Protein backbone atom coordinates (compact mmCIF):
# COMPACT_ATOMS: atom_id res chain seq x y z
CA UNK A 1 0.00 0.00 0.00
CA UNK A 2 2.62 2.38 1.14
CA UNK A 3 4.85 1.56 -1.80
CA UNK A 4 2.12 2.26 -4.29
CA UNK A 5 1.42 5.64 -2.81
CA UNK A 6 5.13 6.44 -2.80
CA UNK A 7 5.44 5.42 -6.41
CA UNK A 8 2.64 7.69 -7.44
CA UNK A 9 4.56 10.55 -5.92
CA UNK A 10 7.78 9.90 -7.73
CA UNK A 11 7.05 11.80 -10.90
CA UNK A 12 5.98 14.98 -9.19
CA UNK A 13 8.78 15.02 -6.65
CA UNK A 14 11.63 14.01 -8.91
CA UNK A 15 12.78 17.44 -9.95
CA UNK A 16 12.49 18.89 -6.48
CA UNK A 17 14.35 16.00 -4.96
CA UNK A 18 17.14 16.27 -7.50
CA UNK A 19 17.75 19.92 -6.89
CA UNK A 20 17.52 19.52 -3.15
CA UNK A 21 20.01 16.70 -3.08
CA UNK A 22 22.46 18.88 -4.93
CA UNK A 23 22.04 21.59 -2.33
CA UNK A 24 22.44 18.97 0.33
CA UNK A 25 25.88 18.23 -1.00
CA UNK A 26 26.97 21.77 -1.51
CA UNK A 27 29.14 21.66 1.58
CA UNK A 28 31.24 18.86 0.21
CA UNK A 29 33.85 20.05 -2.21
CA UNK A 30 34.45 17.66 -4.95
CA UNK A 31 37.83 18.21 -6.46
CA UNK A 32 39.83 20.29 -4.06
CA UNK A 33 40.53 17.67 -1.48
CA UNK A 34 43.19 15.04 -1.70
CA UNK A 35 42.04 11.48 -2.01
CA UNK A 36 42.02 10.60 1.61
CA UNK A 37 42.98 6.96 1.26
CA UNK A 38 46.53 8.07 0.78
CA UNK A 39 46.32 11.17 2.90
CA UNK A 40 49.33 10.21 4.95
CA UNK A 41 51.30 9.33 1.86
CA UNK A 42 50.87 12.38 -0.31
CA UNK A 43 54.09 11.86 -2.22
CA UNK A 44 53.25 8.41 -3.59
CA UNK A 45 49.89 9.76 -4.79
CA UNK A 46 51.63 12.45 -6.78
CA UNK A 47 53.98 9.78 -8.06
CA UNK A 48 51.14 7.57 -9.16
CA UNK A 49 49.51 10.49 -10.91
CA UNK A 50 52.73 11.11 -12.76
CA UNK A 51 53.59 7.55 -13.67
CA UNK A 52 49.91 6.77 -14.26
CA UNK A 53 49.36 3.39 -12.68
CA UNK A 54 46.85 1.46 -14.72
CA UNK A 55 44.46 -1.11 -13.33
CA UNK A 56 42.56 -3.11 -15.91
CA UNK A 57 39.42 -4.88 -14.76
CA UNK A 58 37.93 -7.70 -16.82
CA UNK A 59 34.28 -8.30 -15.98
CA UNK A 60 31.76 -5.64 -14.94
CA UNK A 61 29.66 -7.59 -12.44
CA UNK A 62 29.52 -7.09 -8.67
CA UNK A 63 33.25 -7.75 -8.21
CA UNK A 64 34.64 -5.81 -11.16
CA UNK A 65 32.30 -2.83 -11.00
CA UNK A 66 32.90 -2.36 -7.27
CA UNK A 67 36.67 -2.58 -7.72
CA UNK A 68 36.59 0.02 -10.49
CA UNK A 69 34.41 2.45 -8.54
CA UNK A 70 36.28 2.15 -5.26
CA UNK A 71 39.69 2.50 -6.93
CA UNK A 72 38.52 5.82 -8.34
CA UNK A 73 36.99 6.94 -5.02
CA UNK A 74 40.19 6.11 -3.16
CA UNK A 75 42.62 7.53 -5.70
CA UNK A 76 41.26 9.29 -8.79
CA UNK A 77 44.81 9.50 -10.19
CA UNK A 78 44.81 5.79 -10.97
CA UNK A 79 43.91 4.96 -14.55
CA UNK A 80 41.06 2.45 -14.34
CA UNK A 81 39.97 0.55 -17.45
CA UNK A 82 36.90 -1.68 -17.19
CA UNK A 83 36.33 -4.26 -19.92
CA UNK A 84 33.11 -6.22 -20.39
CA UNK A 85 31.56 -7.89 -23.41
CA UNK A 86 28.18 -6.37 -22.53
CA UNK A 87 27.13 -2.73 -22.30
CA UNK A 88 25.21 -3.46 -19.12
CA UNK A 89 25.27 -5.87 -16.26
CA UNK A 90 22.08 -7.64 -15.23
CA UNK A 91 22.18 -8.48 -11.53
CA UNK A 92 21.69 -12.11 -10.68
CA UNK A 93 20.85 -11.07 -7.13
CA UNK A 94 17.15 -10.16 -7.17
CA UNK A 95 16.60 -11.80 -10.57
CA UNK A 96 14.34 -14.40 -8.91
CA UNK A 97 12.09 -11.44 -8.06
CA UNK A 98 11.97 -10.50 -11.74
CA UNK A 99 11.12 -14.09 -12.74
CA UNK A 100 8.15 -14.06 -10.40
CA UNK A 101 6.95 -10.56 -11.27
CA UNK A 102 8.06 -8.85 -8.07
CA UNK A 103 10.59 -6.51 -9.68
CA UNK A 104 10.97 -5.01 -13.11
CA UNK A 105 13.88 -6.12 -15.30
CA UNK A 106 14.96 -2.47 -15.62
CA UNK A 107 15.58 -2.32 -11.86
CA UNK A 108 18.37 -4.91 -12.07
CA UNK A 109 19.84 -3.81 -15.41
CA UNK A 110 22.87 -1.63 -14.78
CA UNK A 111 24.53 0.25 -17.68
CA UNK A 112 28.30 0.15 -17.24
CA UNK A 113 28.83 3.43 -19.07
CA UNK A 114 26.82 5.21 -16.40
CA UNK A 115 29.14 3.84 -13.71
CA UNK A 116 32.14 4.80 -15.84
CA UNK A 117 30.89 8.35 -16.42
CA UNK A 118 30.11 8.84 -12.73
CA UNK A 119 33.62 8.00 -11.62
CA UNK A 120 35.98 8.67 -14.50
CA UNK A 121 36.44 5.01 -15.38
CA UNK A 122 37.48 4.11 -18.95
CA UNK A 123 34.84 1.56 -20.02
CA UNK A 124 35.51 -0.56 -23.07
CA UNK A 125 32.91 -2.95 -24.40
CA UNK A 126 35.01 -5.75 -25.82
CA UNK A 127 35.63 -9.47 -25.77
CA UNK A 128 38.71 -10.51 -23.81
CA UNK A 129 40.77 -12.95 -25.86
CA UNK A 130 44.02 -13.57 -24.05
CA UNK A 131 46.71 -12.58 -21.61
CA UNK A 132 50.45 -11.97 -21.90
CA UNK A 133 51.56 -12.43 -18.30
CA UNK A 134 55.17 -11.46 -18.98
CA UNK A 135 54.45 -8.25 -20.84
CA UNK A 136 51.38 -7.59 -18.66
CA UNK A 137 49.02 -7.10 -21.56
CA UNK A 138 45.35 -8.07 -21.71
CA UNK A 139 44.32 -8.93 -25.25
CA UNK A 140 40.84 -7.90 -26.33
CA UNK A 141 38.73 -7.55 -29.47
CA UNK A 142 39.27 -3.81 -29.08
CA UNK A 143 43.06 -4.11 -28.98
CA UNK A 144 45.79 -4.84 -26.43
CA UNK A 145 45.62 -3.13 -23.03
CA UNK A 146 48.71 -2.83 -20.83
CA UNK A 147 48.26 -3.02 -17.08
CA UNK A 148 50.17 -2.64 -13.85
CA UNK A 149 47.54 -4.74 -12.10
CA UNK A 150 44.79 -6.84 -13.65
CA UNK A 151 41.60 -7.74 -11.78
CA UNK A 152 39.50 -10.55 -13.26
CA UNK A 153 35.92 -11.04 -12.10
CA UNK A 154 34.00 -13.12 -14.64
CA UNK A 155 31.39 -14.82 -12.43
CA UNK A 156 30.29 -18.31 -13.41
CA UNK A 157 29.73 -20.44 -16.47
CA UNK A 158 27.76 -23.66 -16.85
CA UNK A 159 29.44 -27.03 -16.37
CA UNK A 160 27.23 -29.11 -18.63
CA UNK A 161 26.85 -32.84 -18.18
CA UNK A 162 27.32 -34.32 -21.69
CA UNK A 163 25.05 -37.25 -20.78
CA UNK A 164 22.07 -34.92 -20.43
CA UNK A 165 22.50 -33.20 -23.78
CA UNK A 166 21.57 -29.97 -22.01
CA UNK A 167 23.65 -27.26 -23.68
CA UNK A 168 23.29 -23.69 -24.91
CA UNK A 169 20.94 -24.61 -27.76
CA UNK A 170 18.44 -26.20 -25.37
CA UNK A 171 18.07 -23.00 -23.44
CA UNK A 172 15.74 -21.31 -25.86
CA UNK A 173 13.12 -23.68 -24.51
CA UNK A 174 14.69 -24.52 -21.16
CA UNK A 175 16.28 -21.38 -19.71
CA UNK A 176 18.22 -22.02 -16.50
CA UNK A 177 18.21 -18.28 -15.75
CA UNK A 178 21.12 -18.66 -13.33
CA UNK A 179 23.04 -15.97 -15.16
CA UNK A 180 20.64 -13.06 -15.33
CA UNK A 181 19.68 -11.55 -18.67
CA UNK A 182 17.48 -12.74 -21.51
CA UNK A 183 16.89 -16.07 -19.80
CA UNK A 184 15.47 -14.27 -16.78
CA UNK A 185 12.79 -12.81 -19.04
CA UNK A 186 12.22 -16.13 -20.80
CA UNK A 187 11.63 -17.92 -17.51
CA UNK A 188 9.47 -15.03 -16.25
CA UNK A 189 7.25 -15.44 -19.32
CA UNK A 190 7.05 -19.20 -18.78
CA UNK A 191 6.14 -18.72 -15.12
CA UNK A 192 3.38 -16.31 -16.08
CA UNK A 193 1.84 -19.11 -18.20
CA UNK A 194 1.61 -21.61 -15.32
CA UNK A 195 -1.99 -22.80 -14.99
CA UNK A 196 -4.08 -25.09 -12.83
CA UNK A 197 -2.95 -28.72 -12.97
CA UNK A 198 0.57 -27.89 -14.20
CA UNK A 199 3.68 -29.43 -12.68
CA UNK A 200 6.93 -27.52 -12.40
CA UNK A 201 10.11 -29.56 -12.21
CA UNK A 202 12.93 -27.53 -10.77
CA UNK A 203 16.42 -29.03 -10.62
CA UNK A 204 18.85 -27.16 -8.37
CA UNK A 205 22.60 -27.10 -9.06
CA UNK A 206 25.12 -29.26 -7.20
CA UNK A 207 27.39 -27.32 -4.84
CA UNK A 208 29.57 -25.33 -5.44
CA UNK A 209 27.35 -22.91 -7.31
CA UNK A 210 26.52 -19.20 -7.39
CA UNK A 211 24.31 -17.97 -4.53
CA UNK A 212 23.84 -20.80 -2.00
CA UNK A 213 20.28 -19.80 -0.95
CA UNK A 214 19.20 -18.89 -4.50
CA UNK A 215 17.78 -22.31 -5.48
CA UNK A 216 15.65 -22.51 -2.36
CA UNK A 217 14.34 -18.98 -2.80
CA UNK A 218 13.37 -19.91 -6.34
CA UNK A 219 11.75 -23.12 -5.06
CA UNK A 220 9.66 -21.07 -2.60
CA UNK A 221 8.59 -18.64 -5.30
CA UNK A 222 7.65 -21.53 -7.59
CA UNK A 223 5.65 -22.83 -4.60
CA UNK A 224 3.99 -19.45 -4.23
CA UNK A 225 3.04 -19.40 -7.93
CA UNK A 226 1.75 -22.98 -7.62
CA UNK A 227 -0.41 -22.03 -4.64
CA UNK A 228 -1.95 -19.16 -6.54
CA UNK A 229 -2.59 -21.11 -9.71
CA UNK A 230 -3.37 -24.59 -8.45
CA UNK A 231 -0.17 -26.17 -9.77
CA UNK A 232 2.50 -28.42 -8.21
CA UNK A 233 6.27 -28.15 -7.84
CA UNK A 234 8.83 -30.92 -7.63
CA UNK A 235 12.27 -29.80 -6.46
CA UNK A 236 15.08 -32.15 -7.46
CA UNK A 237 18.18 -31.35 -5.41
CA UNK A 238 21.42 -33.25 -6.10
CA UNK A 239 22.73 -31.97 -2.75
CA UNK A 240 22.13 -34.04 0.39
CA UNK A 241 20.15 -31.22 1.99
CA UNK A 242 19.13 -27.56 1.72
CA UNK A 243 22.48 -25.78 1.41
CA UNK A 244 21.75 -22.40 3.04
CA UNK A 245 19.39 -20.94 5.67
CA UNK A 246 18.18 -24.52 6.03
CA UNK A 247 15.72 -24.34 8.95
CA UNK A 248 13.96 -21.34 7.40
CA UNK A 249 13.54 -22.79 3.93
CA UNK A 250 12.63 -26.15 5.43
CA UNK A 251 9.89 -24.48 7.42
CA UNK A 252 8.52 -22.78 4.31
CA UNK A 253 8.57 -26.08 2.37
CA UNK A 254 6.86 -27.96 5.22
CA UNK A 255 4.22 -25.39 6.11
CA UNK A 256 3.40 -22.74 3.50
CA UNK A 257 4.03 -25.03 0.54
CA UNK A 258 3.35 -28.44 2.04
CA UNK A 259 0.39 -29.12 -0.26
CA UNK A 260 2.04 -28.02 -3.48
CA UNK A 261 5.79 -28.63 -3.17
CA UNK A 262 7.75 -31.87 -2.99
CA UNK A 263 11.42 -31.54 -2.07
CA UNK A 264 13.65 -34.46 -2.98
CA UNK A 265 17.32 -34.27 -1.87
CA UNK A 266 20.26 -36.43 -3.04
CA UNK A 267 18.70 -37.07 -6.42
CA UNK A 268 20.66 -37.42 -9.64
CA UNK A 269 19.16 -36.61 -13.00
CA UNK A 270 20.23 -39.30 -15.46
CA UNK A 271 18.44 -38.18 -18.63
CA UNK A 272 15.96 -35.64 -19.90
CA UNK A 273 13.31 -36.47 -22.50
CA UNK A 274 12.88 -33.05 -24.01
CA UNK A 275 9.89 -34.00 -26.20
CA UNK A 276 7.82 -35.58 -23.45
CA UNK A 277 9.19 -33.27 -20.76
CA UNK A 278 10.25 -36.16 -18.57
CA UNK A 279 13.17 -35.83 -16.18
CA UNK A 280 14.67 -39.25 -15.42
CA UNK A 281 16.47 -39.71 -12.13
CA UNK A 282 17.88 -42.38 -9.83
CA UNK A 283 14.74 -41.89 -7.74
CA UNK A 284 12.21 -42.27 -10.52
CA UNK A 285 10.91 -40.35 -13.52
CA UNK A 286 9.13 -37.04 -13.25
CA UNK A 287 6.93 -35.53 -15.93
CA UNK A 288 6.25 -31.82 -15.88
CA UNK A 289 4.81 -28.97 -17.86
CA UNK A 290 7.62 -26.54 -17.01
CA UNK A 291 11.18 -27.78 -16.56
CA UNK A 292 13.70 -25.45 -14.96
CA UNK A 293 17.00 -27.30 -15.01
CA UNK A 294 19.86 -25.38 -13.45
CA UNK A 295 23.14 -27.00 -14.48
CA UNK A 296 26.19 -27.45 -12.28
CA UNK A 297 28.67 -24.62 -12.47
CA UNK A 298 32.31 -23.63 -12.85
CA UNK A 299 34.19 -20.35 -13.07
CA UNK A 300 33.41 -17.92 -15.87
CA UNK A 301 35.03 -18.91 -19.17
CA UNK A 302 37.34 -15.92 -18.99
CA UNK A 303 39.63 -17.38 -16.31
CA UNK A 304 40.06 -20.51 -18.43
CA UNK A 305 40.87 -18.38 -21.50
CA UNK A 306 43.44 -16.42 -19.49
CA UNK A 307 45.10 -19.53 -18.03
CA UNK A 308 44.16 -18.78 -14.43
CA UNK A 309 42.74 -22.19 -13.57
CA UNK A 310 44.99 -24.97 -12.33
CA UNK A 311 44.99 -28.28 -14.20
CA UNK A 312 41.87 -30.30 -13.49
CA UNK A 313 40.13 -27.56 -11.50
CA UNK A 314 36.89 -25.75 -12.20
CA UNK A 315 37.63 -22.53 -10.37
CA UNK A 316 40.54 -20.06 -10.28
CA UNK A 317 43.02 -20.52 -7.44
CA UNK A 318 43.97 -17.42 -5.44
CA UNK A 319 46.07 -16.46 -2.45
CA UNK A 320 43.55 -15.78 0.33
CA UNK A 321 45.69 -12.95 1.73
CA UNK A 322 45.44 -10.89 -1.43
CA UNK A 323 43.19 -12.60 -4.03
CA UNK A 324 46.23 -12.66 -6.33
CA UNK A 325 46.15 -15.56 -8.78
CA UNK A 326 48.41 -18.48 -7.89
CA UNK A 327 49.24 -18.72 -11.61
CA UNK A 328 49.92 -15.11 -12.60
CA UNK A 329 51.65 -12.31 -10.72
CA UNK A 330 49.85 -8.96 -10.58
CA UNK A 331 46.60 -10.66 -11.62
CA UNK A 332 43.78 -10.80 -9.06
CA UNK A 333 40.65 -12.91 -9.28
CA UNK A 334 37.56 -12.10 -7.21
CA UNK A 335 33.90 -13.02 -7.00
CA UNK A 336 32.19 -16.30 -7.83
CA UNK A 337 35.07 -17.49 -10.05
CA UNK A 338 37.54 -18.19 -7.24
CA UNK A 339 38.31 -21.66 -5.99
CA UNK A 340 36.77 -20.78 -2.66
CA UNK A 341 36.69 -24.06 -0.75
CA UNK A 342 40.44 -24.30 0.05
CA UNK A 343 40.89 -20.62 0.91
CA UNK A 344 37.69 -19.30 2.42
CA UNK A 345 34.35 -20.02 4.05
CA UNK A 346 32.84 -17.16 2.05
CA UNK A 347 29.92 -18.02 -0.23
CA UNK A 348 29.72 -17.22 -3.92
CA UNK A 349 27.50 -14.18 -3.49
CA UNK A 350 27.15 -10.72 -4.99
CA UNK A 351 27.74 -9.16 -1.60
CA UNK A 352 31.03 -11.02 -1.21
CA UNK A 353 32.09 -9.98 -4.71
CA UNK A 354 31.24 -6.37 -3.77
CA UNK A 355 33.07 -6.59 -0.45
CA UNK A 356 36.17 -8.26 -1.88
CA UNK A 357 36.21 -5.68 -4.68
CA UNK A 358 36.58 -3.03 -1.98
CA UNK A 359 39.39 -4.99 -0.32
CA UNK A 360 41.31 -5.37 -3.59
CA UNK A 361 40.77 -1.69 -4.50
CA UNK A 362 42.01 -0.57 -1.09
CA UNK A 363 45.07 -2.83 -1.34
CA UNK A 364 46.01 -1.81 -4.88
CA UNK A 365 45.91 1.82 -3.78
CA UNK A 366 48.14 0.92 -0.82
CA UNK A 367 50.58 -1.01 -3.01
CA UNK A 368 50.87 1.89 -5.48
CA UNK A 369 51.53 4.17 -2.51
CA UNK A 370 54.33 1.91 -1.28
CA UNK A 371 52.36 0.49 1.63
CA UNK A 372 51.80 -3.10 2.67
CA UNK A 373 48.42 -4.54 1.69
CA UNK A 374 46.05 -5.47 4.52
CA UNK A 375 44.54 -8.92 4.91
CA UNK A 376 40.90 -9.32 3.85
CA UNK A 377 38.14 -8.22 6.22
CA UNK A 378 34.65 -8.54 4.73
CA UNK A 379 31.04 -9.18 5.57
CA UNK A 380 28.28 -11.01 3.75
CA UNK A 381 24.61 -10.19 3.86
CA UNK A 382 22.17 -12.03 1.71
CA UNK A 383 18.40 -11.67 1.84
CA UNK A 384 16.00 -14.18 0.29
CA UNK A 385 12.26 -14.28 -0.09
CA UNK A 386 10.29 -17.27 1.18
CA UNK A 387 7.07 -15.79 -0.23
CA UNK A 388 5.86 -12.54 -1.77
CA UNK A 389 5.52 -11.03 1.67
CA UNK A 390 8.18 -12.55 3.90
CA UNK A 391 11.94 -12.58 3.79
CA UNK A 392 14.93 -14.09 5.57
CA UNK A 393 18.66 -13.39 5.64
CA UNK A 394 22.08 -14.65 6.54
CA UNK A 395 24.82 -12.45 7.99
CA UNK A 396 28.49 -13.31 8.47
CA UNK A 397 31.66 -11.39 9.22
CA UNK A 398 34.88 -12.81 7.79
CA UNK A 399 38.56 -12.17 8.29
CA UNK A 400 41.77 -13.74 7.06
CA UNK A 401 43.36 -16.08 9.57
CA UNK A 402 47.14 -16.43 9.23
CA UNK A 403 47.04 -19.59 11.30
CA UNK A 404 44.70 -21.35 8.86
CA UNK A 405 45.75 -19.36 5.78
CA UNK A 406 42.05 -19.05 5.11
CA UNK A 407 39.33 -16.39 5.28
CA UNK A 408 37.13 -17.53 8.17
CA UNK A 409 34.18 -16.38 10.26
CA UNK A 410 35.24 -13.74 12.78
CA UNK A 411 34.41 -14.16 16.48
CA UNK A 412 31.41 -16.38 15.74
CA UNK A 413 29.63 -13.53 13.94
CA UNK A 414 27.34 -15.64 11.80
CA UNK A 415 23.60 -16.15 11.95
CA UNK A 416 20.15 -16.36 10.45
CA UNK A 417 16.85 -15.05 11.88
CA UNK A 418 14.55 -17.15 14.03
CA UNK A 419 11.74 -16.82 11.51
CA UNK A 420 10.77 -15.26 8.21
CA UNK A 421 9.10 -11.85 8.49
CA UNK A 422 7.66 -8.91 6.62
CA UNK A 423 10.32 -6.69 8.20
CA UNK A 424 13.04 -8.87 6.68
CA UNK A 425 11.38 -8.60 3.29
CA UNK A 426 11.21 -4.80 3.52
CA UNK A 427 14.83 -4.55 4.66
CA UNK A 428 15.82 -7.00 1.93
CA UNK A 429 14.27 -4.77 -0.70
CA UNK A 430 16.26 -1.80 0.63
CA UNK A 431 19.42 -3.90 0.71
CA UNK A 432 18.87 -4.79 -2.94
CA UNK A 433 18.47 -1.19 -4.02
CA UNK A 434 21.43 -0.03 -1.94
CA UNK A 435 23.87 -2.71 -3.13
CA UNK A 436 22.95 -2.08 -6.77
CA UNK A 437 23.82 1.59 -6.31
CA UNK A 438 26.92 0.90 -4.19
CA UNK A 439 28.19 -1.33 -6.98
CA UNK A 440 26.94 0.08 -10.27
CA UNK A 441 26.44 3.83 -9.84
Amino acid at each position, binding site marked *: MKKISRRSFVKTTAVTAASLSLF*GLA*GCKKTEQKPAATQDAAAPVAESAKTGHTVVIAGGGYGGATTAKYLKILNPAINVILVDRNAEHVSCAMSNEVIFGLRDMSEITMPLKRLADNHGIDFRQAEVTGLDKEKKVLKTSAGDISYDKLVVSPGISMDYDPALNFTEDKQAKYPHAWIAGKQTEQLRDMVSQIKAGDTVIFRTPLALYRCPPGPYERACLFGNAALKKGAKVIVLDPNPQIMSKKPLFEKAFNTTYKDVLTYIPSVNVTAIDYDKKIVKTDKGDFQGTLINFVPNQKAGELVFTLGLVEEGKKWASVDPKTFESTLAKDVYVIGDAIDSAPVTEMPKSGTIANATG*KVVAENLVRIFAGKEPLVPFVGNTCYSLVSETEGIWIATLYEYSAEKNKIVTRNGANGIPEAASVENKVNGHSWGN*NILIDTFM
Partner: protein
Amino acid sequence: MRKSIMILTLSLLTITTTATIVMAQENEEGRRFGNFCSSCHGTAGAAVSDAIPSIGGQHKDFLKNSMMDMKPIVVDGKEQAPKRYSTLMKIFLKGYSEAEIEAMADWYSSRPWVPTSYPLNQDLVAKGKASTQLETCTSCHGANGNNVEDAGIPRIGGQVPTYLYNALLEYKNDKRMTERASEMELVKEISDEELKALAEYFSSLK
Protein backbone atom coordinates in the same frame (compact mmCIF):
# COMPACT_ATOMS: atom_id res chain seq x y z
CA MET B 1 5.18 2.47 -14.93
CA ARG B 2 7.67 0.79 -12.63
CA LYS B 3 10.35 1.10 -15.27
CA SER B 4 10.06 4.83 -15.70
CA ILE B 5 10.05 5.29 -11.95
CA MET B 6 13.20 3.28 -11.50
CA ILE B 7 14.91 5.26 -14.22
CA LEU B 8 13.86 8.51 -12.59
CA THR B 9 15.01 7.30 -9.22
CA LEU B 10 18.29 6.15 -10.68
CA SER B 11 18.90 9.47 -12.36
CA LEU B 12 18.41 11.16 -9.01
CA LEU B 13 20.84 8.76 -7.47
CA THR B 14 23.45 9.50 -10.09
CA ILE B 15 23.54 12.99 -8.75
CA THR B 16 23.96 11.91 -5.17
CA THR B 17 26.42 9.08 -5.68
CA THR B 18 28.63 10.96 -8.10
CA ALA B 19 29.00 13.55 -5.44
CA THR B 20 29.76 11.03 -2.72
CA ILE B 21 33.35 11.97 -2.36
CA VAL B 22 36.02 10.83 -0.07
CA MET B 23 36.81 13.63 2.34
CA ALA B 24 40.10 14.46 3.97
CA GLN B 25 41.43 13.03 7.24
CA GLU B 26 39.88 9.63 7.12
CA ASN B 27 40.07 7.12 9.91
CA GLU B 28 41.53 4.37 7.71
CA GLU B 29 40.98 1.67 10.28
CA GLY B 30 37.33 2.63 10.59
CA ARG B 31 37.01 2.55 6.83
CA ARG B 32 38.58 -0.89 6.65
CA PHE B 33 36.32 -2.38 9.32
CA GLY B 34 33.22 -0.66 7.96
CA ASN B 35 33.69 -0.57 4.21
CA PHE B 36 31.52 -3.58 3.48
CA CYS B 37 28.63 -1.99 5.42
CA SER B 38 28.00 0.26 2.41
CA SER B 39 26.50 -2.64 0.47
CA CYS B 40 23.43 -2.25 2.71
CA HIS B 41 23.79 1.34 3.99
CA GLY B 42 24.89 2.92 0.69
CA THR B 43 28.24 4.18 -0.55
CA ALA B 44 29.96 6.01 2.34
CA GLY B 45 26.79 5.38 4.35
CA ALA B 46 24.42 7.33 2.10
CA ALA B 47 21.42 5.01 1.77
CA VAL B 48 19.25 5.37 -1.31
CA SER B 49 16.34 3.16 -0.31
CA ASP B 50 13.83 3.62 2.51
CA ALA B 51 14.29 1.03 5.27
CA ILE B 52 18.02 0.81 6.04
CA PRO B 53 19.32 4.02 7.63
CA SER B 54 21.88 6.41 6.25
CA ILE B 55 24.89 6.35 8.55
CA GLY B 56 27.33 8.59 6.65
CA GLY B 57 27.47 11.94 8.43
CA GLN B 58 25.42 10.68 11.39
CA HIS B 59 26.51 12.02 14.78
CA LYS B 60 29.42 10.01 16.12
CA ASP B 61 28.25 9.29 19.66
CA PHE B 62 24.88 8.13 18.39
CA LEU B 63 26.55 5.81 15.88
CA LYS B 64 28.83 4.34 18.49
CA ASN B 65 26.10 3.96 21.11
CA SER B 66 23.77 2.37 18.56
CA MET B 67 26.35 -0.23 17.62
CA MET B 68 27.30 -0.94 21.24
CA ASP B 69 23.62 -1.26 22.17
CA MET B 70 22.95 -3.75 19.36
CA LYS B 71 26.05 -5.80 20.21
CA PRO B 72 25.28 -8.86 22.33
CA ILE B 73 27.13 -8.81 25.64
CA VAL B 74 28.38 -12.04 27.13
CA VAL B 75 27.96 -12.38 30.90
CA ASP B 76 29.28 -15.52 32.62
CA GLY B 77 29.66 -17.19 29.25
CA LYS B 78 26.02 -16.52 28.37
CA GLU B 79 24.96 -14.18 25.60
CA GLN B 80 22.55 -11.51 26.83
CA ALA B 81 19.86 -9.91 24.69
CA PRO B 82 21.19 -6.57 23.41
CA LYS B 83 19.57 -3.38 24.75
CA ARG B 84 18.54 -2.31 21.31
CA TYR B 85 16.48 -4.46 18.94
CA SER B 86 17.93 -5.29 15.55
CA THR B 87 17.48 -7.93 12.88
CA LEU B 88 20.94 -8.79 11.56
CA MET B 89 23.04 -6.04 13.13
CA LYS B 90 23.41 -8.06 16.32
CA ILE B 91 25.14 -10.78 14.32
CA PHE B 92 27.69 -8.48 12.70
CA LEU B 93 28.41 -6.52 15.87
CA LYS B 94 29.22 -9.69 17.75
CA GLY B 95 32.34 -9.80 15.60
CA TYR B 96 33.68 -6.36 16.57
CA SER B 97 35.51 -5.00 19.61
CA GLU B 98 34.53 -1.68 21.18
CA ALA B 99 37.66 -0.04 19.74
CA GLU B 100 36.74 -1.21 16.25
CA ILE B 101 33.18 0.05 16.68
CA GLU B 102 34.60 3.39 17.81
CA ALA B 103 36.76 3.54 14.66
CA MET B 104 33.79 2.78 12.41
CA ALA B 105 31.66 5.41 14.16
CA ASP B 106 34.48 7.87 13.64
CA TRP B 107 34.80 7.10 9.95
CA TYR B 108 31.09 7.05 9.10
CA SER B 109 30.40 10.22 11.08
CA SER B 110 33.07 11.97 9.02
CA ARG B 111 31.33 11.16 5.70
CA PRO B 112 29.00 13.68 4.09
CA TRP B 113 25.34 13.50 5.17
CA VAL B 114 23.23 13.00 2.06
CA PRO B 115 19.55 13.78 2.71
CA THR B 116 17.32 11.07 1.29
CA SER B 117 16.05 11.49 -2.25
CA TYR B 118 13.59 8.64 -1.74
CA PRO B 119 10.15 9.71 -3.02
CA LEU B 120 8.12 10.83 -0.02
CA ASN B 121 4.40 10.91 0.59
CA GLN B 122 3.79 14.67 0.48
CA ASP B 123 0.41 14.39 2.24
CA LEU B 124 2.15 12.76 5.16
CA VAL B 125 4.93 15.33 5.07
CA ALA B 126 2.37 18.12 5.32
CA LYS B 127 0.56 16.31 8.10
CA GLY B 128 3.78 15.87 10.02
CA LYS B 129 4.68 19.51 9.57
CA ALA B 130 1.30 20.55 10.94
CA SER B 131 1.41 18.10 13.85
CA THR B 132 0.93 19.56 17.32
CA GLN B 133 3.59 17.08 18.42
CA LEU B 134 6.23 18.55 16.14
CA GLU B 135 7.71 20.68 18.88
CA THR B 136 8.08 17.59 21.03
CA CYS B 137 10.62 16.39 18.47
CA THR B 138 12.30 19.65 17.53
CA SER B 139 12.94 20.67 21.14
CA CYS B 140 15.73 18.09 21.26
CA HIS B 141 16.45 17.29 17.60
CA GLY B 142 16.42 20.91 16.42
CA ALA B 143 14.10 22.56 13.93
CA ASN B 144 16.03 20.99 11.02
CA GLY B 145 16.41 17.61 12.71
CA ASN B 146 20.11 18.13 13.24
CA ASN B 147 21.08 19.14 16.76
CA VAL B 148 24.83 19.56 16.54
CA GLU B 149 25.19 20.41 20.24
CA ASP B 150 24.70 16.82 21.37
CA ALA B 151 26.38 14.09 19.29
CA GLY B 152 24.39 11.45 21.19
CA ILE B 153 21.16 12.67 19.62
CA PRO B 154 20.72 11.31 16.11
CA ARG B 155 20.49 13.45 13.03
CA ILE B 156 17.00 12.78 11.68
CA GLY B 157 16.50 15.55 9.11
CA GLY B 158 16.82 13.81 5.74
CA GLN B 159 17.02 10.30 7.24
CA VAL B 160 15.23 7.61 5.18
CA PRO B 161 11.48 7.40 5.97
CA THR B 162 10.69 3.76 6.74
CA TYR B 163 13.67 3.50 9.08
CA LEU B 164 12.62 6.62 10.99
CA TYR B 165 9.09 5.35 11.46
CA ASN B 166 10.31 1.90 12.55
CA ALA B 167 12.72 3.53 15.01
CA LEU B 168 9.85 5.45 16.59
CA LEU B 169 7.81 2.26 16.89
CA GLU B 170 10.77 0.51 18.49
CA TYR B 171 10.98 3.22 21.17
CA LYS B 172 7.23 3.07 21.62
CA ASN B 173 7.20 -0.72 21.98
CA ASP B 174 10.19 -0.91 24.36
CA LYS B 175 12.47 -2.47 21.77
CA ARG B 176 15.16 0.14 22.37
CA MET B 177 15.94 -0.07 26.08
CA THR B 178 19.03 2.07 25.70
CA GLU B 179 20.54 4.50 28.17
CA ARG B 180 18.77 7.48 26.66
CA ALA B 181 15.51 5.69 25.79
CA SER B 182 13.72 7.55 28.59
CA GLU B 183 14.11 10.73 26.53
CA MET B 184 11.92 9.07 23.90
CA GLU B 185 9.22 7.96 26.40
CA LEU B 186 6.93 10.67 25.05
CA VAL B 187 6.37 8.77 21.78
CA LYS B 188 4.17 6.42 23.79
CA GLU B 189 1.59 9.20 23.91
CA ILE B 190 1.57 9.66 20.12
CA SER B 191 -0.51 7.51 17.74
CA ASP B 192 1.25 5.35 15.15
CA GLU B 193 -0.41 7.36 12.43
CA GLU B 194 0.96 10.62 13.75
CA LEU B 195 4.41 9.10 14.26
CA LYS B 196 4.39 8.05 10.62
CA ALA B 197 3.59 11.60 9.53
CA LEU B 198 6.31 13.02 11.77
CA ALA B 199 8.83 10.51 10.38
CA GLU B 200 7.90 11.46 6.82
CA TYR B 201 8.24 15.15 7.66
CA PHE B 202 11.72 14.78 9.13
CA SER B 203 12.75 12.70 6.10
CA SER B 204 11.81 15.65 3.91
CA LEU B 205 14.23 18.04 5.66
CA LYS B 206 17.54 18.76 4.02
